[in-house]
Structure formats: structure tokens, C-alpha cells
């Protein structure tokens, strides 16, 4: 489904701030794979996501999605088939627009809606939005005329998740999307993520700093360090792996920096 072939990206080349964020990174994701990604801060996890989503064009290498070379495709073109959630719940929604308006924008991804520039939200659309929102179990279906800015972070993130998967994407990128939420809400959003991804068979990549999650969620675990994937496990090997094993690998990969790093355990 997703094939990353030897991509590299260096920020601020030729300056004192030069930073090789991705170095010859390769990855092959099969259709329906749900891979978790761990790695210390600065390992290149978010940069890899941004490279896939098209926030910037990679310096070298190619990215293929579903057999199509998307290396030079613009971000808004890729976003038709790639859903991207960030740690910051404010990033995925327009705060001054209502819930139903946000949903309508997400629905633009559907290929048949691209010709309808001048259509307004119909009652049929509203019924569909309402039905989708009720799946969240947060009562948002009764607040469809409220601006999204009034929602809590957890509600906004759940809404963003719904919007990203409203039209089933080929690939879903989850960049620590539960990290800014309180534990109960985080749990709820994660459960929701798992059920949506499973139900629709979406190919998915999820960054997490929670080692339990890294091993329990999905079917594959990747570890990144210094702009590369340094460890890749799935199947039986993954099933027999403990959090301690993973931490050991993490220490080997990250070296001494580890002691100073934030949240590793939970």
C-alpha cells in the first residue's frame, strides 16, 4: 500500500542549523497494516509523516501510495487519500466554523463532491453528519450548529478523527493524536481509532510514546532513530516482545540521550 524508497530530507542545508531529519529511510506497508512507531524526540517520526503527507517534498527518494508515485504531489492533492492527525487537537478543525460546516469540508474529499462547488449543506448531508457524530457518543450530534472552537480538546480530536475517516482514506497518519488529552479521553479516542481502522481496514501509521500501546495496538511495531527505521517487528516476534525488551532496544538505538528524554514508560 505505502512504499517509501530511500527518502532523505535535510533542513537548513549549508547552515549552522543543518539537520538531517531523514536519512535513506525505507518502509513497506501492506494493505491493512496498522503499525505503531516509537522513537525519541527528534528521531524523525513527525518528519516522516510530513514527508508522506506532502508538507514538504523530500530531497531524495520516492514515495508510492497504492502503486502510484506521489513524491511530487502537492499536499492538498495527497490529502484526498491520506488522513493526518496531529498531537495538537486545534490543528485539524476550523474553530470559527460550526461542526456541520467542518464535516462538510471533510466530505469534500469524496471524489463525487468535487464538482459541487456551489452546493450548500443539504438536509441529507445533515442526517449523514448526525449519524456519524452519534458514533462518537459525545452528544455532538445535538450541537451541530455550534462553532468547533467551543468544544474541548478531546471532542475536537474525536471530531478530527471522524473527519479524517469520513471518506475512507487509503492511509491514516496518527501523530501522537492522543498525547494532549486527559487519560480517560485519550483512551476513548484510541478505542474509537482502533474500531474505525479495523472496521474499514484502513492502512495506518501511529506514533506513540506509550510502549504498551506500541506493542498492543495494531499488528506491527517500528522504532525510529536518527532519521531511520532501526527496528521493525511483527507477527510472532512482536507477540513475544515485552515492554522491557522494547525499552532495551530503545536504549541501544537512542544511546545516552535516553536518560534525558521525556515519557518513555507508562
Amino acid at each position, binding site marked *: 500500500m505505502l512504499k517509501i524508497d530511500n527518502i532523505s530530507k535535510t533542513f537548513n542545508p549549508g547552515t549552522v542549523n543543518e539537520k538531517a531529519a531523514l536519512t535513506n529511510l525505507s518502509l513497506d506497508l501492506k494493505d491493512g497494516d496498522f503499525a505503531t512507531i516509537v522513537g525519541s524526540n527528534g528521531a524523525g517520526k513527525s518528519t516522516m509523516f510530513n514527508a508522506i*503527507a506532502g508538507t514538504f517534498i523530500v530531497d531524495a527518494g520516492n514515495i508510492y501510495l497504492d502503486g502510484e508515485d506521489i513524491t511530487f504531489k*502537492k*499536499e*492538498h*492533492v495527497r*490529502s*484526498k487519500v491520506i*488522513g*493526518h492527525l496531529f498531537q495538537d487537537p*486545534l*490543528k*485539524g*478543525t*476550523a*474553530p*470559527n*466554523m460550526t461542526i456541520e*460546516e*467542518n464535516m*462538510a*469540508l*471533510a466530505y*469534500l*474529499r469524496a471524489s463525487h*463532491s468535487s464538482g*459541487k*462547488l*456551489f*452546493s*450548500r*449543506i443539504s438536509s441529507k448531508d445533515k442526517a449523514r453528519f448526525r449519524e456519524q457524530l452519534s458514533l462518537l457518543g459525545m452528544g455532538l450530534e445535538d450541537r451541530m450548529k455550534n*462553532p468547533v472552537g467551543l468544544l474541548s480538546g478531546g471532542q475536537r480530536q474525536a471530531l478530527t478523527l471522524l*473527519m*479524517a475517516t469520513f471518506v475512507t482514506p487509503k492511509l491514516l497518519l496518527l501523530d501522537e493524536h492522543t498525547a494532549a488529552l486527559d487519560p480517560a479521553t485519550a483512551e476513548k479516542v484510541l478505542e474509537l481509532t482502533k474500531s474505525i481502522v479495523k472496521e474499514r481496514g484502513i492502512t495506518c501509521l501511529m506514533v506513540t510514546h506509550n510502549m504498551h500501546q506500541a506493542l498492543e495496538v495494531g499488528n506491527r511495531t517500528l522504532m525510529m532513530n536518527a532519521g531511520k527505521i532501526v527496528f521493525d517487528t511483527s507477527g510472532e516476534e512482536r507477540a513475544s516482545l515485552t515492554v522491557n525488551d522494547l525499552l532495551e532496544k530503545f536504549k541501544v538505538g537512542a544511546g545516552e540521550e535516553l536518560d534525558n528524554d521525556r515519557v518513555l514508560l507508562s
Partner: protein
Amino acid sequence: MSGIFTVSIFQSALELGCIYALVALALFISFTILNIADLTTDGCFTLGCAVGAMVTLSGHPFLALVAALISGALAGFITAFLQTKLGVESILAGIIVNTGLYTINIAVMGFSSLINLFGCDTIFSLGKDGVPYMIFGDWYKVITVAFIVALIALALWWFLGTTLGMSIRATGDNTEMVKSSSINPTFTITVGLCLSNSLTGLSGCLIAQYQKSADINIGTGMVTLSLAALIIGQTLIGNKGSTIRRILGTILGSVLYRFIVAIALRMSVPAEALKLVSAIIVAVAIAAPYVRKKAALKKREFVNYRDNREVKENA
């Protein structure tokens, strides 16, 4: 009030308020919705005025409105093109186009800085000779411009609720989100600026027909004056709330601003001073909430200081 206000002053304030409301709506689109400081306005207003005057002069007052609309949209397109395709900062893009337009405008006016439309048919003169005057009497001008503004406001409200309109609103609200919703911000910014400047152009044309003249300097300071109207409207209505409410607030702001100007003129403030007065209104309106907050904080700080000193003295 009746001492200061005569019916005709009331009428002309309403007329001008409605005509300039189109520029305020243009800024509502660019400043408020798209969150872009588009400084094309001054030149674009004169462009609409010049193009409108020339077409009116050739005997087509209604075609003039369309021509001014299109010329404004073109100016907006160039500003949008500079900032989305050529990487020019949005403020700079507006200033560049605004500067260039001076030459274009004077060329459109046949290298003369003033065009007179006396004796030409305008939508107002046609109204006076036709049905509107028979029905509304002296109010026919007010009715004409109010009708145009109502039409535009309605169309704008409808448009902002369409898929394209919502995409434009989202572009100003959260660009990141727009990109990840498969909307091309280059496209939405371009459409938004074309739309906004077309309204400015239309307003320029209406002023030309209303004053029966076009002047190369007529647009000077227009962005500030209209910003004053926009801010007055937002202060009264609030910049949250439904789209229709905000559109009506903007129009109301523009009309109120013209009343303020009319009162100022009536109180023999010289016409030349009006731009200074407008600039002060804008500065005060924007600064007021900030200063009020600061003052409240200073007050608390002072009370705190005094209390601490009392405690110390008593000890």
C-alpha cells in the same frame, strides 16, 4: 437632533453608507474571513470608479457596473497571483498592485485626472426619470443603493454557505486544516480576493455615477475608511455569530460611519480633516479593548501595591 439633521443629510448619509458598505464587505471578506491584509483596495476603488465612469460616459450605465465589477476582480486576481504563485508577502502584493494601478487608472481615464459625467445617463438619473422616483420620491436613490447592497449581501450570504464559500472561510480560519481537507488554498485565496475586489470596484463605479465624476485620488485612504466601518460594525454586532449577522453588522457599520461623518461635517469640521478623523476612529476602535485590559491590570497592580504597603506599615 433635528437642528443638526435635515432630511437630505439623513438621506445622503444613507446613500453613501450603502455604497461604501460594498467596500466594507470587501474588507470583511479579505481582512475578516481570509485573514489577509489586502491593500489593493485604494487603487481598486479608483479603478472601478475610472472604468465605471468611462463606460457610463459611452452611454451604458448598467454595463458600467458590470465592467467595474470585472475590473476589480482582475485587480484582485493579480494581487492573489503575486502572493500565491510568486511568493510575494500578502501586504506587499497589495501595495505593489495598488501602486501600479495609479498608472492604469489614469490611462483608463484618458490621462486626465478628472472625468465629468454631467449630462450622462446614470442609474440614478434613470431612476429619477423613471418608476423609482414616481414611487419613492426623493428616496429613490436610497432605495436604489439599498436594493443593490441587499442583493449583494444576500448573494454573499448564500455564497459563503456553499462548499466553495466554506472552503474560503476555512482558509482564513485554519490553513493547515484546509490543506489536509484536499482544498487548494491557492484557489480559495484567489477566488476570495477576486470576489472582495470586485465589490470594491462596483462601489467605485456607484460613487462615480452618484457624484457624476471620477477623480484619480478618490480612492486615497479608502482602506482605512472602510476598515473604520467594518470595525464599527464588528464592535456593535460582535465578530462572532452567524454569517448573515456579520454581513448585516458590516453594512450597519458603514451606514453609521457615514452618519458620524455627516454630523462632523455639520459641526463644521472641514472636509479635509475627515481622513484624519477616520484614521483616529480606526486607531481608537482597535486600541480601545487592549488599553481597557491594560488599565484594569494596572489598577489591580496598584491596589495590590497599596494593600501590601498598608500591611507593612501596620506591622
